[in-house]
């Protein structure tokens, strides 16, 4: 995790929103992270347009790969994973960017989502992005990632950003062309995310899963 940019929250506390970028790229450098950074830039700019200052935190899932396997087997988060979950719990919006393998997200990304505390993404605006070696995976976002995020209760932004290798060769374009160039899709997605975030109050702190919510008298009465 690293804070990449964002002004000091103390200057305008009420207008700050936490944008958490979850990048599932495996390589270093990774094209998934490259896309994630471009989408982040777009989201930050769009949030600024609606008067919100983004504080960005990035979770690189590859850095958590061994911790995730440990937790899958022991059921207990490692300190590093606990920290990452805390970052997600504080998010006002999440940007999930994943590589596509064999038509879907890789297990490492699924592990991260599986291991998140229950309801970590419920009701949360989530913008999805994906990279793949070929444009033939373009609908993986719709067929694989969106249903997964829906299952987790996320408020998924309508536009998902898919980038095949060749998309990185295009820099400009217009929405009237047959194929919408990557930069236009990124821009549109950022705008949609910002609009969703702007409609919502800042996230209240996540409930402590180990806090007591009912007295024993209530438990005895079956409540």
């Amino acid at each position, binding site marked *: 995790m690293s804070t990449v940019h964002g002004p000091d929250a103390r200057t305008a506390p009420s207008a700050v929103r936490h944008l958490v970028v979850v990048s599932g790229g495996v390589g270093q450098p990774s094209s998934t992270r490259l896309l994630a950074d471009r989408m982040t830039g777009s989201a930050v700019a769009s949030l600024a347009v609606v008067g919100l200052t983004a504080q960005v935190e990035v979770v690189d899932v590859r850095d958590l790969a061994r911790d995730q396997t440990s937790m899958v087997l022991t059921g207990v988060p490692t300190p590093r994973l606990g920290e990452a979950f805390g970052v997600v719990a504080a998010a006002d919006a999440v940007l999930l960017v994943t590589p596509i393998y064999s038509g879907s997200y890789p297990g490492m990304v699924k592990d991260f989502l599986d291991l998140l505390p229950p309801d970590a993404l419920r009701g949360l605006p989530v913008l999805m992005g994906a990279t793949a070696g070929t444009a033939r995976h373009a609908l993986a976002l719709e067929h694989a990632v969106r249903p997964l995020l829906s299952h987790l209760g996320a408020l998924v932004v309508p536009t998902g950003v898919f980038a095949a290798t060749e998309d990185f060769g295009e820099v400009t374009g217009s929405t009237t062309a047959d194929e919408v160039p990557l930069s236009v899709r990124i821009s549109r997605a950022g705008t949609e995310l910002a609009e969703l975030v702007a409609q919502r109050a800042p996230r209240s702190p996540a409930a402590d899963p180990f806090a*007591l919510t009912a007295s*024993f008298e209530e438990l005895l009465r079956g409540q």
Partner: protein
Amino acid sequence: MMQFGVFTVGDVTADPTTGRTPSEGERIAAMLAIALKAEEVGLDVFATGEHHNPPFVPSSPTTMLGWIAARTERIVLSTATTLITTNDPVKIAEDYAMLQHLAGGRVDLMMGRGNTGPVYPWFGQDIRNGIPLAVENYALLHRLWREDVVDWQGRFRSPLQSFTSTPRPLDGVAPFVWHGSIRSPEIAEQAAYYGDGFFHNNIFWPSEHTAQMVNLYRERFEHYGHGSADQAIVGLGGQVFMRPRSQDAVQEFRPYFDVAPVYGHGPSLEEFTEMTPLTVGSPQQVIDRYAGMRDVVGDYQRQMFLIDHAGLPLSTVLEQIEILGTEVVPVLRRELAVGRPAHVPDAPTHARLVAAAGDRRDAPVHALADDVTGRSPVVVP
């Protein structure tokens, strides 16, 4: 005084260094040998798990503990855990009261819910009702040991009219109960409500989590008026492997750790020992680590060690118990007694419970319904 003991899951697991899997009979015999060894070296408690699915053998804890009771004189026999969800609380009341008589009071229990979904329907239950089952069943069990004649109706079990659980608890005093939970605040609350013990089996968990759960229990214990927070009755799990030289311990234990059920193929031995109470090293390292546990949870009453899982051969396990009993526990007893406030209770025993109740009370009950009023007779002590 604190109590120190060993608890066993009763898993049948291949020894990864030889590939040999013990038979069920061998595993059961090994559990008995472990209990006898624990008594021999002066440990205070032996506790067995309860499981109803392979590869675990201890499906009938009171049968096993009854055998051990007949061959021991001092050690307290306990469970880790008794399934309060899928067992009929009436049968728990009867079985453990009988065991209490056979063992001369050297019996307590740790209640647990069980986390294996398919086991619940085998006993007519549903894991999604885990907490409500634990709450209702224990509420009944608590009454069955304390009231000679019980009328009762609940959600999960057929009603009882004029029911007397026999035999009545030894000396009129119910066995002490611990409530074991790793991550459910409701169970810490349950333990606090009744003034029972709370056992945090922290063997997979970092100390901050253990401290949070124990502190919740302590606060609520005080809230329910059983005493001050530091007088609540706390037990902890632990896991150790020892050799005189720490590098020998690590070398010998690593092949068992690396493929152990539950955590094998996951975290490294080094990561796991840092994150959890698992200590692999010299007896002195174990002493240092466990002497520090009271800094996490406050002065506490019971420390249990897991020493026999993952296919470790019986001979090795018996050596571990020997080291615990001769080198580790005597030092921990001394060190943890230093600075322990006088108002912090000793570990619960039958004798202490009888003393707290005033005196022993033998209560034969002949519960015949009164055929005029239909009500049960008042029992004359």
